[in-house]
């Protein structure tokens, strides 16, 4: 493939663009407050890139992903701070435990579809947030928990600048992994499940296995971001595990554009930064935020990135074959009697 065509594909062109944005970021961020917003946006983006694999590509839903985020955060915080384990090992252990848990609860609940699946994942999220709030000997309850900073090989990571690079590189890696997955046999199987579950099954796709797989993968993305968030902030409270946070994450994915990895990143970035920008509206901040989101959904229901891509995508139309080859639809083709 010539370099020009290669750069036009999301896998190389989009990834390169994201890497450039991350690289020039420090030149645009005037002080540590902006660094903080950028780090939080990138952490949310990592969760959303994973959640989009589940929602946007595989066509499933989760209203409980703050639960996985929180289990990653509290898991690594408790292992590293309370039990004094090495932070990196604590993160790895917490993420592995979340993957196992997601696999275990995914098996029964992913048999459900649509609203029922939404309710089941919602229930999971609520259980996690109740446990976190009530097991105060372990989690500090509503007061939260102080978390030791991340130390790697005796080197303690502190300050927004260091964290910016860690989180930035991880975001690029997360996007790379997601793009790879989507464009692989497993990714096609996931998208096929979204398109037609019975069609995918008769083509040989084990639907149950693939749903649990993508559920666990998305939980791992959330747990990694959660545990990093705990070590970065040095503090974790139950609000990060709340139902509201789960909804925020789903909103970011839908707002940015479902089945678009870069949409998930942009949705997370915009919806993390926007409330900060809107503080000029003081008491009306949430009203303006709500209005912006309602307007976006009314005027671009597919989300930011797919809508913008369609606007700039005259290219796509030219890939269609010439009109001569199109045969007219036969009358009544859409509504036939069943045999």
């Amino acid at each position, binding site marked *: 493939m010539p370099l020009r065509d290669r750069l036009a594909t999301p896998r190389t062109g989009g990834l390169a663009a994201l890497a450039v944005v991350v690289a020039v970021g420090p030149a645009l961020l005037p002080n540590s407050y902006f660094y903080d917003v950028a780090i939080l946006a990138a952490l949310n983006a990592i969760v959303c890139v994973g959640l989009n694999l589940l929602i946007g590509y595989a066509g499933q839903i989760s209203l409980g992903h703050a639960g996985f985020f929180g289990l990653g955060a509290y898991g690594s915080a408790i292992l590293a701070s309370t039990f004094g384990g090495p932070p990196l090992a604590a993160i790895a252990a917490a993420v592995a435990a979340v993957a196992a848990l997601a696999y275990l609860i995914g098996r029964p609940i992913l048999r459900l579809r649509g609203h029922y699946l939404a309710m089941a994942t919602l229930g999971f999220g609520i259980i996690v947030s109740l446990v976190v709030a009530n097991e105060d000997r372990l989690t500090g309850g509503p007061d939260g928990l102080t978390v030791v900073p991340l130390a790697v090989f005796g080197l303690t990571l502190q300050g927004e600048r260091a964290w910016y690079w860690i989180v930035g590189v991880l975001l690029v890696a997360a996007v790379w*992994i997601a793009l*790879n*997955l989507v*464009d*692989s*046999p*497993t*990714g*096609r*199987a996931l*998208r*096929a499940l*979204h*398109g*037609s579950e*019975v*069609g*995918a*099954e*008769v*083509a*040989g*796709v*084990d*639907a149950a296995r693939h749903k649990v*797989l993508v559920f666990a993968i998305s939980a791992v993305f959330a747990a990694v971001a959660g545990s990093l968030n705990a070590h970065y902030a040095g503090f974790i409270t139950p609000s990060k595990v709340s139902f509201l946070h789960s909804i925020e994450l789903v909103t970011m994915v839908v707002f940015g554009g479902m*089945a678009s990895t870069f949409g998930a990143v942009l949705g997370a970035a915009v919806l993390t930064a926007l409330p900060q920008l809107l503080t000029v509206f003081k008491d009306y901040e949430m009203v303006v935020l709500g209005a912006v989101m309602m307007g976006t959904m009314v005027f671009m229901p597919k989300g930011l990135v797919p809508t913008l891509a369609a606007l700039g995508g005259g290219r*796509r139309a030219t*890939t*269609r*074959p*010439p009109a001569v*080859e*199109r*045969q*007219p*639809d*036969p009358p*009544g*083709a*859409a509504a*036939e*009697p*069943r*045999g």
Partner: protein
Amino acid sequence: MTMLRTEGLARDFGGVRAVDDLTFEIERGAVHSIIGPNGAGKTTLLNLLTGVYSASSGRIYVDGKDLTGRAPHEFAAAGVARTFQNLQVFFNMSALENVMVGRHLHEQRGLWAALIHTPRLVAAERIGRAEARELLASVGLEAWADAAADALPYGALKRLEIARALAARPRLLLLDEPAAGLNPTETAEIHALIARLAEEGLTVVLVEHNMQLVMGVSDRILVLDYGRRLAEGAPETVRNDPRVVEAYLGAEAH
């Protein structure tokens, strides 16, 4: 040689017995048609034979292996592929990707390879893409390969489903009304395609209302009425069977 065999196969929907005590065999390498009036249970039977529905009673053997109660992907692994009367195309993907999903069981499905795109996966993907493109060409859809599936006209979607089913390299192909809604030219193309596949040794089960197609392409015909076997045999035998004429045209017709 028997490709598929059922024993006392039945399926109830509430109080309705859509398929009732069916025992039959499908010979390897032949074209078998299943016909019958609307509501005779043809599509239900196809759903049973591919694991989409589970049987209320009875057994299904594919290649001598008991697959009763198994999931559709297990039927696929046993060499069974199908198309749908009400299309089950992946409209969120390109035509080429639709066919590539058909190759699922022959693809490299390791998770690590998918996450980091190992050189082996990249090489296998290149071969898979080329194979899928060839299959699209063989059903006359090469020009649509990179188009989104939802941009394809109806007739092309039917052929896309056939290409997807063939991508699985099946030994038994079930086609549910492949000619429904097609114009005579397109129907003739489907006819030629089925004849070619049968010549290559594929076992084909055809559910179809177009009698010209059925009579022209079938080696054997099974006639269903109210979920039961009404008649079975070679096309000429079935055509002249008074019970078949009665079921189709009503008793007064003869």
